[in-house]
């Protein structure tokens, strides 16, 4: 890729930092060139993000319908599977799967809820209400 062809499409990262690309100058020598982003990858990220947002919304609805505990919502929100949650909380995967049931989740001790809240970086009452406000 030639230096002048390095794309400059402003991405959400580009607002924080430009990124280094390697490209060739007029003599064919490699130099570095800063880029604001590239439309092709912005849309790749958008597509992935939209898919995730869909999963989060679906999970939220399931919790509201009492088909799942708020744990499901936070796992989708934080992109965590049972394995990662297990690593953060110290619960076993089979315990986490049980805690996905609303009845069982509602009986959890304050101490257990705290472990989840810490893993998801929220407060215990936010964990219960799914009411999180962040950037």
């Amino acid at each position, binding site marked *: *890729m030639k230096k002048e062809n*390095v794309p400059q499409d402003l991405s*959400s*990262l580009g*607002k*924080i*930092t*430009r*990124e*280094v*690309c*390697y*490209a*060739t100058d007029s003599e*064919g*020598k*490699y130099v*570095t060139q*800063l*880029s604001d982003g*590239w*439309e*092709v*990858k912005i*849309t*790749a*990220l958008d*597509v*992935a*993000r939209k*898919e995730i947002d869909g999963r989060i919304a679906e999970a939220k609805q399931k919790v509201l319908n009492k088909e799942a505990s708020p744990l499901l919502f936070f796992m989708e929100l*934080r*992109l*965590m599977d049972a*394995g*990662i949650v297990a*690593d*953060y909380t110290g619960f076993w995967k089979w315990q986490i799967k049980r805690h996905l049931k609303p009845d069982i989740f509602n009986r959890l001790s304050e101490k257990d809820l705290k472990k989840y809240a810490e893993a998801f*970086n929220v407060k215990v009452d936010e964990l219960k209400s799914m009411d999180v406000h962040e*950037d």
Partner: protein
Amino acid sequence: MKIDFEHGQAAHCESGVTSNLLKKISKGKITEPLAFGIGAGLFFVYVPLIKINNGPAIAFRSMPGFIFNRTCKSLGIPVVQKKFSSKEKAEAALMESLNAGQPVGAQVGVYYLSYFPKEYRFHFNAHNLIVFGKEGDNYLISDPIMEHATTLTSYELERVRFAKGALAPKGQLYYPGNQNEITDDQIRTAIKSGIKKNVFNMLSIPGPFAGVSGISYTGNKIKRWRDKLGLKTAGLYLAQLVRMQEEIGTGGGGFRYIYAAFLQQANDYLPNATLLQASEMFTQAGDLWRTAAVQAAGIYKGRIGSQEDFDVMGNYLLAIADIEKKAFTLLKNIKW
């Protein structure tokens, strides 16, 4: 407390950290492309059966942690590398190195990295940065992806050093074990060894999933994605491929441009027309990877999506595999 250390931005985190940690003792000679090439960073692998973020597991570079280790070993520099079971010990060890005036490389998870934009935060645990001081409760951070040095509070740093999940960093710290100056002869030997290792990784790893055969394997797979997965999921898979290929930290074209730059710089130390010829071929390969990304974007944006469009996409990868195979074969046959 602030160590005499100069932040340098790079394309890829690990080659950037390596180059920056070696900057002083190499007098700036170990550039990012040299670190990437000596560390045999170029790769391709499609790991079947495993899913990452509900998509295919594809990588364009070697295993995390590989570049720093290999670059130092090839240059004859001992490596200090530590993992920790306790957060307290992990912070104490960091402070001890900083107090001794040693900037320290650290493996971290990206998900809770506060200065990253939210859109970019995934559970990826093999990001690398350098800690080069502490002021009050703030650690001074040189993240090679960023234009400028930044900071993390001690809590924020602890959280990303002890991120959980696959490839959990366990507080890992690393730095070169001595401060002896690096000579041009050492660099020459290291370049040869890096190329040799990369030739092996791309041409000789058995099985269809890794190296150039992995690229053609993926190309053929893509042609079947539309039927097998349906248009929507196939689009998501292609978007994941593009992100692995072009997202922050690749320098563009799935690291192929950095590698082309490495071969040019290798030629400065070991003049050889074949290095320049191979460099041009990797530029071509990088360009073709980007053309393929544009085709993929057409599909995941819903602008195109016929079977023929998937065939075109798959065929790009077959053409790339062909170019890279020829280029690595050229490198393999160099008589040093």
